[in-house]
């Protein structure tokens, strides 16, 4: 990991609005050329972090470096127009009085290079729409104009603020794929903000989970999803079942069987498992638990089966839509996929913290 491979470096970034600390000591490094997501619930400070990076807000403390250049610290504040950043706003913020080409060329100075404008438009597949007024474009096209406008001045890094939230659900997935393609082919470093777990997991190479103004966990989508650093991250990324167990340092034993222990985890633990990693069947492995189906929600492609274990504990299992399970079915229940283990104490603490979400 060499220093020049880092496109953006944030250290101890802080921003308060009145008494609310929107960003509270945020540290993050982003590798050049990667696509990274800031994922968090609304009001967690992720958009404020993006605006601090762009220079649209002044931090109360902290340092921001873009490439090797410090653009903000205790003594320096580089104005947004001199940071060489591209930004795609949530509502696109296109210039309504300018046509598509003029929007894209705005960042190229007073006499924009036509070839560069055409190049940027071609990158987003709008090479023939340059003369159209922006209000005539569909939401997806406006999105691409915003992207072309951000990319045209060849910025070091592109920031995208909830870029897909204004699109229809049906359109969203397609546009997401297109945007990732465009960002990859432009070879640009991208940081985007989202509250949508599926979105972050599906398009980012690295995901930084933000909670109450700080980074809770950074990792690949797979790491974040299957090995959440806390019960909060686990719960935020999807449905989670928690089964208490005990660890002797080598193996963890719980109601659903035993599994290999992480190093350093000892004593009482919580085993966190996604419903899709809870298997059920009429027969099962040797140490599988006994359970009874108490309810079922059918979604077509899959079904969520509610179970009561012999101990009285309830747990959910996500299975494919067929065969159908019915309340009253006696089943065997066991782990079938990754499970994450954290010390019991941490789990309790996070469960308590969860009730005081930040406001604003």
């Amino acid at each position, binding site marked *: 990991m060499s220093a020049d491979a880092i496109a953006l470096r944030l250290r101890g970034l802080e921003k308060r609005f009145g008494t609310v600390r929107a960003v509270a000591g945020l540290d993050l490094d982003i*590798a050049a050329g990667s696509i990274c997501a800031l994922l968090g619930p609304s009001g967690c400070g992720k958009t404020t972090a993006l605006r601090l990076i762009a220079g649209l807000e002044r931090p109360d403390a902290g340092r921001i470096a873009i490439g090797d250049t410090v653009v903000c610290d205790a003594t320096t504040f580089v104005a947004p127009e001199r940071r060489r950043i591209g930004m795609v706003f*949530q509502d696109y*913020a296109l210039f309504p009085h300018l046509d598509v080409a003029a929007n894209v060329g705005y960042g190229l100075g007073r006499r924009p290079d036509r070839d560069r404008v055409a190049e940027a438009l071609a990158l987003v597949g709008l090479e023939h729409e340059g003369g159209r007024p922006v209000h005539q474009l569909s939401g997806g096209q406006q999105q691409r104009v915003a992207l072309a406008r951000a990319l045209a001045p060849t910025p070091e890094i592109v920031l995208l603020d909830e870029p897909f939230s204004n699109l229809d659900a049906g359109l969203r997935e397609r546009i997401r794929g297109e945007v990732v393609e465009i960002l990859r082919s432009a070879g640009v470093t991208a940081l985007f903000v989202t509250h949508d777990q599926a979105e972050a997991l599906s398009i980012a190479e690295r995901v930084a989970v933000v909670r109450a103004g700080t980074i809770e966990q950074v990792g690949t989508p797979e790491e974040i999803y299957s090995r959440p650093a806390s019960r909060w991250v686990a719960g935020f990324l999807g449905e989670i079942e928690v089964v208490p167990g005990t660890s002797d340092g080598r193996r963890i034993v719980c109601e659903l069987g035993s599994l290999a222990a992480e190093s350093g985890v000892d004593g009482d633990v919580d085993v966190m498992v996604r419903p899709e990693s809870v298997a059920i069947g009429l027969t099962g492995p040797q140490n599988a638990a006994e359970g009874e189906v108490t309810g079922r929600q059918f979604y077509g492609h899959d079904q969520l089966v509610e179970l009561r274990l012999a101990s009285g504990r309830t747990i959910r299992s996500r299975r494919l839509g067929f065969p159908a399970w019915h309340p009253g079915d006696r089943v065997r229940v066991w782990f079938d996929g990754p499970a994450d283990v954290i010390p019991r104490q941490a789990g309790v603490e996070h469960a308590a913290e969860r009730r005081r979400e930040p406001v604003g």
Partner: protein
Amino acid sequence: MAPATGDAARLPGRLATRRGSRVEALLGDRRPPAALLAAGVVVGLAALLPAAYLLVLVVGDAAAALDAALSSRTAGVLARTLALTAAVTAGAIAIALPLGWLTVRTDLPARRLWATLCTLPLVIPSYVGAYLLIAALGPSGMLQDALGVERLPSIYGFAGAWLALTLFTYPLVLIPVRATLRRIDPQLEDAARAMGRRPAATFASVVVPQLWPALAAGGLLVALYVLSDFGAVSIMRFDSFTREIYTTYRSSFDRTGAAGLGAVLVVLMLALLWVSSRIRGARAVHRLGPGTIKPATPYALGRWRWPAIGLCGAVVTISLVLPVGVLVYWANKGISSGSVSVATVAALGGNSLIVAAAAAAIGAVCALVVAILAGRFPSPVSRALERFSHAGYALPGIVVALALVFFATRAVPVLYQTLAMLVFALTVHYLPLATGPIGASLAQVSPRVEEAARVLGRTPLEVFRTITVPLVRGGVLAGSALIFLHAVKELPATLLLAPIGFETLATDIWNQTQFGFYEASAIPALVLLAIAAPPLYLLSERGTVSA
């Protein structure tokens, strides 16, 4: 790669400590550029000047001012003024409500044409309207001639003032009523009908409550107009506050007396503004639920079509066709008798244009400064400056003029009876008209758009020039058109503040009508209408007249 934590030793010091927290509390988190803030302070203080100087005058000789304000004569003036205000407001609503409904919600033939025609009387200044009524209905007027009778019931006094003001101010109610009727969700009426209410009951129980804000807003404009009107009441010889102030000032140069009366009038206007803001707040109507509003199905008038056309026709005839017809009649006489020279009228028109255009241009710039401060740099200071800029709204033109006359004569004699002082008075007086549309157009420009331009490499000034200005141009034009429209018709401030020998169309019309020279005043009046009509038309199309 990418460690998420660490580096704690290199945490920099807090930036916040470099800023004074008290300054931050006053100027907000986002500090405006110094030049902008300075301009805003100048505008705010200038707008406050007439009110502040009025206060200085009244407090300076409190005994005499109280004497004037509390005399039994003042009580009579107060009663007359309030009666006139109430009667005109009621009359304007009585005309505007049916016209609004007919031109928006029914199948009345040529609805849009009627709507435009019904808005146009606003262009006729009250003093022109009043003298036309006298020319038509007064002693030895056209009606008396036509009927060949000795005497008609006197038009002077309350009846004449009421008629003139009602006929030429009802569009102030009509415009917001029409705008609201267009916005009201007709599905609510469908729902009421479906629940078994008859059309009339539906209108009373569903539509009228939703019209309350529009009626309150329009009624407030009419009431403020009546309170501050000088021309119509003076011509009709009705002793309301403005006429009393003028005669007190002219007859004796009794400064404190006039100022005391002016202060009572200002208190009256403030009370009205307060009451109306309470009414509007309590009656605020919000649309619940999502979805777009589907256009209303026009109510079929059926056999009521002809009475409806008759009503519209009568209003347009009395408030527009007759006045313009009378003007044309007198103008024709004036031209054929050769009593009016083209050069004179051209000079008068030129003077009016210069003064009104200067006030409109300066006012629009001032309003833009205030709107940017309030909209983009919200803070206690910018909010205060925005409120100050509305001060002219609560002062009748004659009070603004009076305060500035005394200010100029006492503090800066160099400025007394200069064009600069006149333009200053008109700008300050009509500034609130421009802050509405300009603030609204700025509010429609998302700050994100400006930020996007910043991030794309442009300096704040370039962003202002290439993004903000083009996007608020419509609002700025509307705001300056509003100022122009009012300034070109303005009478009392121009009478008191214009340099000696500097006559405008308004003052010339006033002078001629004082002596009953109808012929001589008809052509300037027509020219005035011709100048004021285009901006009014533009504004009524945008629906911003009542802003």
